[in-house]
């Protein structure tokens, strides 16, 4: 059997994780429903004035997306850890970082991408303008992969621990603050008529930075957790 190329491995891991996710659709839907619910709770809490809702829409959607992606982090490695697959994966003579990247990408496609696709509908609930909606989507498209990647580090560090779910949020949420700031900042800039490029470019920079470092750090964290 010939060795897989790096990208062959990546594709394989992504395909496997997507198939597994499709066999358990309920898990995917729960995250999405949680996202919709949290966003819908805000108008009930602060009142239905359209002016205020329009102003806080981006922040609400972003915070809800942040919380929803924390919720699904536990699933990234835990199933494979429990049935021993993860241990076998780490024995494979292939780059563990690449393998981890594949799992991150699959995780994002299952739990991040649905949030991005759902966001415009929720934005309409908050009476956002079309232009602001587009910027919100662009920001979420750039930002949610970062949440998955930084979250992967936290998920790997807390693998198999008591109360891992809450702990992982505690570790990861402070690290996600820049994403939240630039994501909402872009929408604010669009509403006030300023240039959105700076925010989106900074988000892209963070995305590239995370893309380079987090798979490797996650691989190290997995090694620490598995030994």
């Amino acid at each position, binding site marked *: 059997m010939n060795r897989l190329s790096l990208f062959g491995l990546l594709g394989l891991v992504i395909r496997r994780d997507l198939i597994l996710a499709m066999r358990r659709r309920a898990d995917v839907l729960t995250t999405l429903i949680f996202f919709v619910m949290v966003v819908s709770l805000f108008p009930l809490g602060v009142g239905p004035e359209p002016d205020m809702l329009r102003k806080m829409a981006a922040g609400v959607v972003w915070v809800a997306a942040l919380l929803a992606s924390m919720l699904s982090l536990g699933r990234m490695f835990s199933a494979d850890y429990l049935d021993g697959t993860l241990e076998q994966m780490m024995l494979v003579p292939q780059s563990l970082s690449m393998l981890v990247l594949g799992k991150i990408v699959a995780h994002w496609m299952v739990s991040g991408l649905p949030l991005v696709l759902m966001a415009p509908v929720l934005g309409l609930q908050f009476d956002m303008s079309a232009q602001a909606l587009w910027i919100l989507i662009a920001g979420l498209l750039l930002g949610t992969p970062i949440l998955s990647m930084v979250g992967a580090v936290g998920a790997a560090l807390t693998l198999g621990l008591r109360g891992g779910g809450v*702990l992982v949020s505690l*570790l990861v949420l*402070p690290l996600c603050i*820049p994403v939240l700031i630039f994501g909402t900042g872009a929408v604010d800039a669009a509403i006030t008529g300023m240039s959105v490029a700076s925010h989106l470019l900074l988000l892209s920079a963070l995305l590239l930075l995370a893309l380079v470092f987090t798979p490797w750090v996650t691989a190290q964290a997995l090694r*620490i957790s598995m030994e």
Partner: protein
Amino acid sequence: MAINWFKYAAPSSFYGLIGKMIPWFAWSSGILFIIGLYIGFFVAPTDVQQGEAYRIMFIHVPTSILSMFVYLVMAGYAAMGLIFNTRLSSMMASALAPTGALLAFLSLWTGALWGKPMWGAWWVWDARLTSELVLLFLYLGFIALQAAIDDPRRADRASALLAIVGSVNVPIIYFSVKWWNTLHQGSTVKFSGTSMHVAMQQAMYTMLLACWLYVIAVSLIRVRSIILERERNTQWVTDLPEVTK
């Protein structure tokens, strides 16, 4: 003469050494606290703009500076423990974490007490305040992760990785918060750029030194108990006079 540079990297010899050093740090810290507070409260003049309330700065500034500095030192020790696999470095990192969290908390608390008379609000979403709050969260995450893992080796290494990721993130967080703030509300109230009175400077530096020595003394005391706890099954611990007694 050959010097063994790594002699005190062993917990057994370090334990005895710091046992002798702790009283010195503790006493000099206490004395400097008294001197600093005396200068701060009785010698330093009343500030023209801020009245008497500015005196909280003698606690606020040292704790703020040290809370950031201690995080770097902690991350440094943690990294050393991860890279060179030295047990003592990891123990130092976990000994520093609670003190760092306490300093960050004190800095926020005194800042709120200072902010109320000066800015008229307990809390403003100023870049510095916000990033200090995030720093407190990072400390708490470090402590929580360490507390959640039962195996001390894994706890050390996992929290070391977290501390390193955190310290890489600190500048990103700081600048993002800074830009966020300037985009939202323009410049906020800042400490006036007037040159400080000499007595104020003296009080500030004395207090900074006192707090620094306090941090050293307290974290060394804590690392001594961590050493005892982790090495409790070794011969040298059972031979210690305070243990056999």
